[in-house]
Protein backbone atom coordinates (compact mmCIF):
# COMPACT_ATOMS: atom_id res chain seq x y z
CA UNK A 1 0.00 0.00 0.00
CA UNK A 2 1.45 3.39 -0.81
CA UNK A 3 1.31 6.92 0.49
CA UNK A 4 -0.67 8.16 -2.48
CA UNK A 5 -3.69 6.49 -0.96
CA UNK A 6 -3.72 9.22 1.65
CA UNK A 7 -4.69 11.88 -0.84
CA UNK A 8 -8.01 13.55 -0.22
CA UNK A 9 -7.56 13.71 3.52
CA UNK A 10 -6.12 17.24 3.54
CA UNK A 11 -9.52 18.87 3.90
CA UNK A 12 -10.39 17.08 7.16
CA UNK A 13 -9.85 18.45 10.69
CA UNK A 14 -6.91 17.06 12.63
CA UNK A 15 -8.82 14.64 14.84
CA UNK A 16 -10.49 13.07 11.82
CA UNK A 17 -7.19 12.75 10.04
CA UNK A 18 -5.90 10.83 13.05
CA UNK A 19 -8.90 8.56 12.98
CA UNK A 20 -8.51 7.99 9.28
CA UNK A 21 -4.81 7.29 9.77
CA UNK A 22 -5.73 4.55 12.24
CA UNK A 23 -8.05 2.96 9.68
CA UNK A 24 -5.29 3.14 7.12
CA UNK A 25 -2.76 1.60 9.49
CA UNK A 26 -5.08 -1.29 10.20
CA UNK A 27 -5.52 -1.85 6.47
CA UNK A 28 -1.75 -1.76 6.07
CA UNK A 29 -1.10 -4.30 8.80
CA UNK A 30 -3.75 -6.60 7.37
CA UNK A 31 -2.30 -6.08 3.94
CA UNK A 32 1.26 -6.95 5.04
CA UNK A 33 -0.07 -10.09 6.65
CA UNK A 34 -1.78 -11.09 3.45
CA UNK A 35 1.27 -10.26 1.42
CA UNK A 36 3.36 -12.39 3.73
CA UNK A 37 0.94 -15.28 3.52
CA UNK A 38 0.74 -14.99 -0.23
CA UNK A 39 4.51 -14.99 -0.82
CA UNK A 40 4.79 -18.11 1.35
CA UNK A 41 1.97 -19.80 -0.57
CA UNK A 42 3.38 -18.83 -3.93
CA UNK A 43 6.95 -19.94 -3.20
CA UNK A 44 5.83 -23.15 -1.54
CA UNK A 45 3.68 -24.00 -4.56
CA UNK A 46 6.37 -23.14 -7.09
CA UNK A 47 9.33 -24.70 -5.27
CA UNK A 48 8.19 -27.71 -3.24
CA UNK A 49 6.97 -30.82 -4.99
CA UNK A 50 8.65 -33.71 -3.30
CA UNK A 51 6.98 -35.23 -0.26
CA UNK A 52 9.14 -38.25 0.44
CA UNK A 53 10.70 -36.44 3.40
CA UNK A 54 9.49 -33.87 5.89
CA UNK A 55 12.50 -31.57 5.70
CA UNK A 56 13.34 -29.21 2.85
CA UNK A 57 15.97 -30.27 0.36
CA UNK A 58 18.81 -27.89 -0.39
CA UNK A 59 17.55 -26.96 -3.85
CA UNK A 60 14.03 -26.38 -2.54
CA UNK A 61 15.44 -23.99 0.03
CA UNK A 62 17.43 -22.09 -2.58
CA UNK A 63 14.38 -21.91 -4.81
CA UNK A 64 12.24 -20.56 -1.96
CA UNK A 65 14.75 -17.84 -1.12
CA UNK A 66 15.12 -16.68 -4.69
CA UNK A 67 11.37 -16.81 -5.19
CA UNK A 68 10.71 -14.67 -2.11
CA UNK A 69 13.46 -12.23 -3.10
CA UNK A 70 12.01 -11.89 -6.59
CA UNK A 71 8.49 -11.58 -5.28
CA UNK A 72 9.45 -8.71 -2.98
CA UNK A 73 11.40 -6.89 -5.64
CA UNK A 74 8.46 -7.36 -7.97
CA UNK A 75 6.08 -5.94 -5.36
CA UNK A 76 8.25 -2.91 -4.82
CA UNK A 77 8.51 -2.19 -8.52
CA UNK A 78 4.78 -2.63 -9.01
CA UNK A 79 4.23 -0.34 -6.01
CA UNK A 80 6.30 2.43 -7.61
CA UNK A 81 4.54 2.19 -10.96
CA UNK A 82 1.17 1.92 -9.25
CA UNK A 83 1.80 5.10 -7.25
CA UNK A 84 2.82 7.02 -10.38
CA UNK A 85 -0.26 6.00 -12.32
CA UNK A 86 -2.52 6.41 -9.32
CA UNK A 87 -1.32 9.97 -8.74
CA UNK A 88 -1.78 10.73 -12.41
CA UNK A 89 -5.34 9.45 -12.32
CA UNK A 90 -6.07 11.46 -9.17
CA UNK A 91 -5.12 14.77 -10.79
CA UNK A 92 -8.52 15.88 -12.07
CA UNK A 93 -7.29 17.88 -15.11
CA UNK A 94 -5.48 14.92 -16.56
CA UNK A 95 -7.94 12.23 -15.72
CA UNK A 96 -9.30 11.79 -19.23
Amino acid at each position, binding site marked *: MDKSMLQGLDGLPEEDQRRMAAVIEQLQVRDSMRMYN*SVVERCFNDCVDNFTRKSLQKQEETCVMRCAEKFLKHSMRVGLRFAELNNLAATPDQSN
Partner: protein
Amino acid sequence: MAANTDLPPGVDKEQVFGMLAMEMEYKVELFNRLAMACFNKCVDKRYKEPELTMGENSCIDRCVSKYFLVNGIIGQMLSAGQRPM
Protein backbone atom coordinates in the same frame (compact mmCIF):
# COMPACT_ATOMS: atom_id res chain seq x y z
CA MET B 1 -14.32 6.62 -7.15
CA ALA B 2 -12.68 9.92 -6.15
CA ALA B 3 -13.42 10.94 -2.56
CA ASN B 4 -15.05 14.29 -2.04
CA THR B 5 -13.94 15.96 1.16
CA ASP B 6 -15.75 19.29 0.59
CA LEU B 7 -18.93 18.33 2.35
CA PRO B 8 -22.27 19.95 1.64
CA PRO B 9 -23.91 20.83 5.02
CA GLY B 10 -26.29 17.91 5.37
CA VAL B 11 -23.89 15.07 4.65
CA ASP B 12 -23.03 12.69 7.42
CA LYS B 13 -19.39 12.59 8.39
CA GLU B 14 -19.58 8.89 9.19
CA GLN B 15 -20.60 8.19 5.64
CA VAL B 16 -17.56 10.05 4.37
CA PHE B 17 -15.33 7.96 6.61
CA GLY B 18 -17.02 4.85 5.37
CA MET B 19 -16.48 5.88 1.77
CA LEU B 20 -12.85 6.76 2.30
CA ALA B 21 -12.21 3.45 4.05
CA MET B 22 -13.97 1.64 1.20
CA GLU B 23 -11.88 3.47 -1.35
CA MET B 24 -8.68 2.45 0.44
CA GLU B 25 -9.89 -1.11 0.52
CA TYR B 26 -10.69 -0.92 -3.16
CA LYS B 27 -7.19 0.30 -4.00
CA VAL B 28 -5.51 -2.31 -1.84
CA GLU B 29 -7.44 -5.00 -3.64
CA LEU B 30 -6.72 -3.46 -7.03
CA PHE B 31 -3.03 -3.40 -6.15
CA ASN B 32 -2.99 -7.00 -4.96
CA ARG B 33 -4.75 -8.39 -8.00
CA LEU B 34 -2.61 -6.33 -10.35
CA ALA B 35 0.59 -7.46 -8.61
CA MET B 36 -0.48 -11.09 -8.84
CA ALA B 37 -1.45 -10.78 -12.51
CA CYS B 38 1.85 -9.13 -13.46
CA PHE B 39 3.90 -11.61 -11.46
CA ASN B 40 2.18 -14.41 -13.39
CA LYS B 41 2.62 -12.72 -16.76
CA CYS B 42 6.19 -11.46 -16.33
CA VAL B 43 8.28 -13.45 -13.87
CA ASP B 44 10.06 -16.69 -14.78
CA LYS B 45 8.92 -19.29 -12.25
CA ARG B 46 12.11 -21.33 -12.38
CA TYR B 47 13.77 -18.78 -10.09
CA LYS B 48 17.28 -19.23 -11.45
CA GLU B 49 18.43 -16.08 -9.69
CA PRO B 50 17.14 -13.77 -6.97
CA GLU B 51 17.21 -10.67 -9.19
CA LEU B 52 14.60 -9.54 -11.67
CA THR B 53 16.09 -9.54 -15.16
CA MET B 54 15.93 -6.47 -17.42
CA GLY B 55 13.30 -8.23 -19.48
CA GLU B 56 11.20 -8.95 -16.43
CA ASN B 57 11.50 -5.37 -15.23
CA SER B 58 10.30 -3.84 -18.45
CA CYS B 59 7.55 -6.42 -18.72
CA ILE B 60 6.39 -5.39 -15.23
CA ASP B 61 6.32 -1.69 -16.14
CA ARG B 62 4.23 -2.33 -19.23
CA CYS B 63 2.04 -4.78 -17.40
CA VAL B 64 1.11 -2.23 -14.72
CA SER B 65 0.39 0.34 -17.40
CA LYS B 66 -1.83 -2.04 -19.35
CA TYR B 67 -3.66 -3.14 -16.22
CA PHE B 68 -4.55 0.49 -15.47
CA LEU B 69 -5.77 0.91 -19.05
CA VAL B 70 -8.01 -2.15 -18.75
CA ASN B 71 -9.25 -0.82 -15.43
CA GLY B 72 -10.09 2.49 -17.09
CA ILE B 73 -11.90 0.95 -20.06
CA ILE B 74 -14.09 -1.21 -17.87
CA GLY B 75 -14.73 1.67 -15.46
CA GLN B 76 -15.96 3.81 -18.37
CA MET B 77 -18.16 1.03 -19.70
CA LEU B 78 -19.78 0.61 -16.31
CA SER B 79 -20.36 4.27 -15.59
CA ALA B 80 -21.66 4.85 -19.14
CA GLY B 81 -24.12 1.97 -18.87
CA GLN B 82 -25.03 2.95 -15.31
CA ARG B 83 -25.58 -0.70 -14.75
CA PRO B 84 -25.75 -1.76 -11.18
CA MET B 85 -23.32 -4.64 -10.66
